[in-house]
Structures are given as structure tokens and as C-alpha cells.
């Protein structure tokens, strides 16, 4: 009985992997991910991170000199 359960779990895992891989290789989904990653919302954290660093260094300059 236990072997049957293990076999079913293995088969399901393999199926899930195949579906995931085929989705990842889907050119439409891949292009959409590419475009989404270039959108303003996706880019905001990168820009904010640099802006925050700039602000920090400005404060250091003011205090440190």
C-alpha cells in the first residue's frame, strides 16, 4: 500500500515539473514576463534603492565635513 502512495506522489511530482517547465518555455508567457519586468512598477524598487543610497551619502557629506 505504502509503495502505491509513494508511486502516486512521484508521478504527480513529475507531472507538476513537466507542466511548470512547459509553462516556463511558453514563448507568450516568457515574453509577458519580460515585458512585466520592464514595467514602471517592477523598476520602482531599483530606482528607490539608488535614490535612498544617494540621500544617505548626501547626509553623510553634510554631517561628515
Amino acid at each position, binding site marked *: 500500500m505504502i509503495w502505491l502512495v509513494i508511486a502516486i506522489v512521484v508521478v504527480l511530482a513529475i507531472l507538476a515539473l513537466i507542466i511548470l517547465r512547459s509553462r516556463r518555455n511558453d514563448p507568450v508567457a*516568457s515574453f509577458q*514576463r*519580460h*515585458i*512585466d*519586468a*520592464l*514595467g*514602471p512598477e*517592477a*523598476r520602482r*524598487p*531599483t*530606482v528607490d*534603492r*539608488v535614490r*535612498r*543610497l544617494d540621500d544617505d551619502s548626501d547626509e553623510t557629506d553634510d554631517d561628515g565635513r
Partner: protein
Amino acid sequence: MARDLAIDLGTANTLVYMKGRGIVLNEPSVIALNRQTGEVLATGREAWQMIGRTPGYIVAVRPLRGGAITDFEITERMIRLLLQRVGVSRFTRPKVVICVPSAITEVERRAVTDAARRAGAADANLIEQPMAAAIGADLPIDEPVGNMVIDIGGGTSETAVISLGGIVSLEAVRVGSFDIDAAIQNHVRREHGIAIGERTAEEIKVAIGSADPTHDENQAEVRGRDLMTGLPKTVLLTPEEVRFAIEDVISSIVASVVRCLSKAPPELSQDFLVRGMYLVGGGGLLRGLAERIERETEVPVRMSNVPLEAVVLGAGHVIEHYEALKSMFMGARS
């Protein structure tokens, strides 16, 4: 586990972006070596201060000239030192994205990626500078509209039309702000008979250089070595004569922008009239350059908010979304 890195390997400056942290290094692309032993004596700002002021046994060099690698071995050593300085070691192997001029040859591509891998990168990929600049300048390149970016660096000037996350047309010339400095150096030597160093030429460019007449124009006092007597000498330079001296370089940059515009599909061309073109890179800061390009192309020119950091910022964004954007790497599309 090391954080992944994006590197803007520019002719003038090198910037490094660390995933999750932002820009962690911004220094001149200069390395100082002991000519006899080949040992590295300094890199970055420290090496830049040595240019033209070293004793015979020390040489301070820029391993990249005109957007091309002039010395592969020195470039590799510089990349290795850069990675070491931001914490990459034999045990921490990050993924690295390096921005390079689009005109780079296949041999140079291999040299840069191999150098990064040998220096400790687990994987090294390249991205074209204008593409990274467009991402970093926050242009809406995810939309089906024409975005035009002009990246004027130290050794190259690149203009690209980008739409829907890809390059539509591209034009690059191996001319940049170092050529402007060299033109000023040659002019002072020819017309005034004095020799000046490249750092002095750069200071003249920053002080009174312009591509088009501007409101506030002052003369500059220039000190150098008299070519006839060998003694120190001072001369006065006017903005008009600097403009005359750099005219060939400026014309060449403007001509490449015009060529890129003429290669763009008509549907995208009409977008430029509304949205304008974006100027990035240190060379874009030359006074009057935006006005000059605007006058000759009749297309509005806007300056990016982050002209010096746009390229590394764009590459940094790619490293943050590595899986989704890896189709942008050079070679991935061909």
C-alpha cells in the same frame, strides 16, 4: 552566498550595482602598474590622480579606449580587483551582468566574460549600454512606443531606438568625451604652442566647453609647457575657440543621432516628436549639446535625471529580474 552584481564597465568610469543594495562602487576606470614588475599599485580614483604625474617606472592607464579593450590582461586584472573590492572571493560566486558598448567585437565579448568568470563570477553575461541606459533612465520601454536614448560615454556615443523591451535600431560611433578632451589638447598645442595634459583638457571642457553658444560664457586661463622654450606658460582660451576645436567630434556625434533617426520605422518616428529623445552619459553633460542635437534634428532632447548612473541602474534592474530579463543578454537573441 554572494549577492549578484551589475557592472558598467565604461571607458571613463566603472560603476558596480549589488543586488538588493544598489550602487556600491563608482570610480574612474584607471589602473596604475609598476612597469618593471607588472604589479598593480592602485586602481580607481587613486590611480586616476596619478595620470600624467608618475615617475618612469609607474604607468597609469585606462584599459578601455574608444569603447574597445586596449589591453585584455590589464582589463582582466581590473575586473578581478573590482570584484574583490565588492566582496567576491573564491567561495562566493555571484552572477554578473556587464554593460559594454554595442560595437564591441566578438573577441572582446569573450575576453570580458572570461575575465569575469576567472575573477570569480559563477556566470557572466553582457548587455548593450544603450539598452541598460533606457531601463535606468526610466523610459517606458515596456510599451509599444518609440523610445530614443543617446548615451555619450568617454569613448563611444550610442543612439538606440527601443520599443517593447527590444532594440529597434542602433547607431554607435567610437567617439566620446575623451575625444573632446583630445581635440582641446591638440588645439592648444597647435594654436598656442603649449602642451597640456589630458586632465587639464578635461578641466577646460568642464569650465568653458560647449557644443552651442550659451548664456554664461567666460574665458579660461590655461597653464601648460611652452613647446618652444620648455618653460611653464599661461594662455587665455575663449569658449568660441573651444567650440571650434571640438566641432568635428560634436558633428560626428550629431550625425550618428541623425543616422539612427533615419533608420527608425516611421510608426515609431512620430513618437519621438512628442516624447523626445533622452540624453545620458557623462558626455551628455557638455553645455549646449542637448540644444545642438535638438536644433539639428528638430526633435526635443531631454536630459535624464540620472545621466551618470543610468546604465548601471538599468543593468542593476536586469540583475534584480535575472530570469525574466535574461533574453536581453548579448548573444541570447542571436
